[in-house]
Structures are given as C-alpha cells and as structure tokens.
C-alpha cells in the first residue's frame, strides 16, 4: 500500500464506511499519521463522523463536521480535507457517499488529488444489494461513478455480505463476480473482505490462488443500539 | 329579419337582468309577478321583436333560457 490517498466509493449500502474504517485501522499499523474523512453527504446515520471517540482512541484523525451538528440535517464536508490531501505526512482515507451521486463532493478536491497522483479509487461491491446482483451491475456502477466523479476507478473490493448471516458460499460468489468485473474493467481486484467471525485464516487458504485479491479481515464496528447493548 | 323565440324557465331565473341588458332588440324585461323562489324573473315583454340572436342565453348564468329561430 504505497499509495497515499484511498477513496472508497461504490453502490449505496455496499459497506463503504465499514471497509474504510477497517482500512484506516489497517493503515495505522504501519503509519503514524492516518486520517479518515467523512465525505458522505447522503447518509444521515451509520457514518464515520459519529465515531469521533473511536478514531481518537485509535490515533486516527477524523475529518468531519463538528459533532454538534450531527443530528441536524446538515450533511456537510469540512475544509480541512484539502490540507490533508496536500500533506505528504498523512495517509488519507476518503469515505464517500453512495452511488455515483455520492462522489459529487469529490469534485471540489479532485484536482488536488490528481495533482498528488498517488491515489487508489476503490469500487466496493456487495452482491446482495439490489442493483449490483452480478458482474454487469458492478461494471455499470463503476462506469456511473467514473462519469460523475471524473476519476477512474483503480481497483475493486469485494464486500459481499449479509451482515451476521454471511456465509462462505456467499463470499465466494461475490469474489467470482467482482473478479470478472475487475477483469473486464481492466483493473485489479484489490481485496475480498471476510468478516472475522468466519475464521478468515482457514478461509484464506480456500481462497488462495483462486483470486488475485487478498483476503481482508473485516471487523464490524457499526451497529444498531440494541446490538450494542447485547454485551451486558 | 329572421324571427326568433325565447323560452325562459322562470323557476331557474334569478332575475339578474344580464339577459335584459344583452338583448339588442329590447325584447326582455322583468315580470310583474314572482317565481316560487321570490324572484321577479326575466320574460319576453316584446316577443314579436325577437330575432333569435341568442345573446340573452349567452349571458344567462343559470342556463334558464332556450332560443329558437325560424329557418
């Protein structure tokens, strides 16, 4: 991961925030300065900006509007994002909103990103979502996102899951379609995410050699309040 | 001059006089008696002068007037 700016985009509800959060933690293992920017102006709940303390505790800079306005209907992005993009000390994770329209806010910083050059533009896909049920759906979404954001996707992440009902067969099917979409888009399949409860180590062996992407263990951080309360 | 005929449904008439004003031949006027609603209604006072132009019916807000004309 020698790149410096990582953009997570994809179909609405594909799991961008969960993957971006895990990826920021992964980057933190090898780098002192990691920032995650909440660029989601579409989604009102389950956003990285709601996790201020979580990121602070883990030494990750959260770039998001002040928490005070989180419960207002003011989904904005903050000016400091531009500075982070220019600051070579930082690895920056950009957590975008869903769909092509969710990448509109990229427009305001696109030139700065391209000027730095060293970025990844991930397309996240979950085959269980209604509009990305197959290879064609993923390719269509990638095309729409490229048109809207004017940034060419550089890799695909397979994030096929059904929350706690995820099984291995599901993940394999997702990897197959993402792999085929990546081949046809002529970009690599970067990762196949596997929730940690599925014992990713043994699963990694199953997947080894079958796909070009690495297995990326995914810890789940975004819960409903009643799920959170289960650990009493 | 063609000869016309005006038939006024006196029970529908509200006596607004718009038809009277519209008549180019001064055929119409208000009746001396009242309809069951208590209005003095429009009636042809000089039916022989009617030319069947239809202006009265055109101005009637209550569709109380029918107009006929000799072929």
């Amino acid at each position: 991961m020698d790149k410096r700016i990582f953009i997570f985009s994809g179909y609405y509800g594909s799991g961008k925030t969960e993957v971006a959060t895990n990826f920021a933690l992964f980057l933190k293992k090898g780098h002192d300065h990691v920032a995650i920017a909440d660029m989601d102006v579409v989604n009102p709940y389950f956003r990285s900006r709601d996790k201020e303390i979580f990121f602070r505790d883990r030494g990750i800079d959260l770039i998001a509007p002040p928490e005070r306005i989180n419960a207002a209907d003011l989904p904005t992005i903050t000016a400091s994002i531009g500075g982070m993009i220019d600051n070579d000390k930082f690895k920056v994770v950009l957590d975008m909103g869903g769909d092509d329209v969710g990448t509109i806010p990229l427009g305001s910083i696109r030139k700065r990103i391209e000027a730095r050059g060293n970025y990844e533009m991930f397309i996240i896909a979950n085959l269980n979502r209604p509009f990305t049920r197959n290879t064609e759906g993923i390719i269509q979404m990638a095309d729409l996102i490229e048109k809207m954001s004017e940034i060419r996707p550089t890799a695909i992440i397979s994030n096929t899951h059904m929350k706690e009902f995820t099984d291995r067969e599901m993940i394999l099917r997702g990897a197959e379609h993402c792999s085929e979409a990546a081949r046809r888009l002529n970009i690599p399949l970067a990762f196949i995410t596997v929730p940690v409860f599925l014992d990713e180590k043994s699963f990694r062996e199953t997947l080894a050699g079958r796909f070009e992407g690495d297995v990326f263990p995914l810890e789940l951080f975004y819960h409903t309040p009643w799920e959170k309360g289960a650990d009493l | 001059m063609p000869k016309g005929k005006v038939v006024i449904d006196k029970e529908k008439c509200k006596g607004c006089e718009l038809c009277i004003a519209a008549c180019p031949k001064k055929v119409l006027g208000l009746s001396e008696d009242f309809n069951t609603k208590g209005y003095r209604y429009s009636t042809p006072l000089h039916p022989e002068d009617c030319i069947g132009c239809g202006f009265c019916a055109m101005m009637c807000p209550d569709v109380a007037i029918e107009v006929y004309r000799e072929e």
Partner: protein
Amino acid sequence: MGEKYLMKGNEALGEAAIIAGCDAYFGYPITPQNELTAYMSKRMLEEGRVFVQSESEVAAINMVFGAAGAGKRAMTSSSSPGISLKQEGISYLAGAQLPAVIVNVMRGGPGLGNISPAQGDYYQATRGGGNGDYRLIVFAPNSVQEMADDVMDAFYLADKYRMPSMVMADGMLGQMMEPVQFKDPKSKKDLPAKDWALTGAKGRPRNIVRSLMLGGTGLYEHNEVLRKVYAEVEANEIRYEELETADADLTLVAYGSASRACIGAVRYLRAAGKKVGLIRPRVIWPYPYKALEKQAEKSKKFLVVEMNLGQMVDDVRIGVAGKAPVEFFGYAGGWIPTVKEVVDRVNQML
C-alpha cells in the same frame, strides 16, 4: 418468496410498494426517509409508473388524493414534520373514503427537531392528526422485513376498507440494513371493485369524489358509514405478537425500534430465570386492548418502553384497565433503548 437481499428499511419500503402494484408515488425530500424517494425515482420510472418529486409535502399528499381518486394505488412518504404538513390531505382522503398508503419514517420533534429516530408521532397517527373523526390503519414494523411486509398489507387493507393506511417506522429502521425477502403480492380478486373511481363517465352515471356533505343529515350519515367501517377494522385487523407472556410476572409493551431492545431484554432476563414477557403491537390502530386486558389477569406489572415522553402508554392503561400498575420508560429526541437499559429498568421493578 423471492431471493434474499440486503437492504435498507427505506429501500425495502419502496421495493415492496412496487411489488404491491403501487401505480404512483409522490414525495418531497426529508431526512431520514430520502432513500425511499430516491429509490422510487429510479424504480418507478423503470417500471413505467408515475413518480413526481412534488413542490411540498402538501402537494404530495394531494397528488396522492388525485391518483387514489383515479382508483390507482398511490403512496407518499415523509418524516415527522412532513407528515404534519400532510395531515390536511390525510383527513380529506379519510373523508372521501380514498385508499392510499402513507409512510412515516419518524424523527425527533417537536418542530424541526432533529434527524434522530423517535416515536413521537404515535398520537398523531392513531388519533388522527387532521380534523374530524377518522382513523388510519397504522402498521408498526420493527425490522426491514416487516417494513416490506407491512407496505404490501397496507395497500391491501386500504383497498379493502376504502381508507388510508400508514406504515409508521422510525429513522433507525429506515436507515439500517437487514436481509429481506419479498412476498408475492396478495391477489386483488377479493377486493371490492373501485366503481367509485374518477375515470371519465363513459357508459355510467358520473362519479364524484368528495368529503363535503351538505344538506340535512348528509354528513351525519356519512360519518355513520365511517363508524361502521372502523368498527369492522377493529373487529378484523388487530395484530400483535407475544413473547414469553404465558407466565410473565412483568410484561413489557413496545413497538418498532424500541421493541428490538425489549426482545433482547426478555431473552436475557429469561436466561437469568426471570419471568418477563413482551406484547408487541404490530398494528397500533386498531389497538390490541383485549390482549392487554387478558395479560393483566396474570401479569403483576407492565412496563411500556417508547422513544417518546409516553404516548402508547395511554393505550396500555386503557387495555390493562387498572388491573395492574403500568410504568413508563422512555426519552425523546435521539434515544433508542439498549438491551442493558431495559434490563436495568426491569430489574428495578422486579
């Protein structure tokens, strides 16, 4: 049953409406239900059906009035402040006996409030937020699956009784993702023909859609018709679920998101050997008063959990009718109970 999808509650509401044969959707943006309008903007056009982003909530509900008057299945959705604006139209729909579906993905209030989930619109939904004597059939789902199922039933029952129905969810249900499978739509075969619809008077006497009933006893008689319809709905459409109620010393009562924590609490407390159960109204008008009355004969205490300052608790008290104490636990404006909070509160009472 088709295949399984992972969907947001708001999206599931939309897809279920499409499967149910929703002919026309009219909406105006408001968080946290925007995904539903966005979903419909794409899917309704794909299906060749009617979608309009209206100029206001007021216009949206009246566009529904028009489409429903044409005998079509019509729907609008909003969140609390927007639902307030729709009350005029809802009252007219009820008065004119037009079937339609209204979705409320509730947020915090009063006023502009905030975008946090809440259940502050219970009174408004179940007592009639507009003028006059009328009722809505109000569904209270607690999962993405139930949101989908309820929309389909809401269309069906609206047509069956010629009255508007409502699906009342909250922001958390609208925004969260869960697996969902869509049912096949119910056949319209047993539904009454919409021979009252405004389709042009070709080959029949003219139809009039109205709630204005002038002259003599017109309005009185019309309201007696409504009374009969509502009595029928109360006799046939009460829906609730019971969990571990048979020997419960303490009975929880909750609906929607608040009931999710209560389900967790019942399981936890039962594992600890405590006799706690839950009654969960699935439809909040008509209300399961009799179920509560029956439960009050065996349960010593009731605890109502709501994401408001205490609204459904009034209905529970009506049902329990003084046979057992009824306590309330709830906050408004950004609070969803956790399992632990409910367990702690129950333990205080036991």
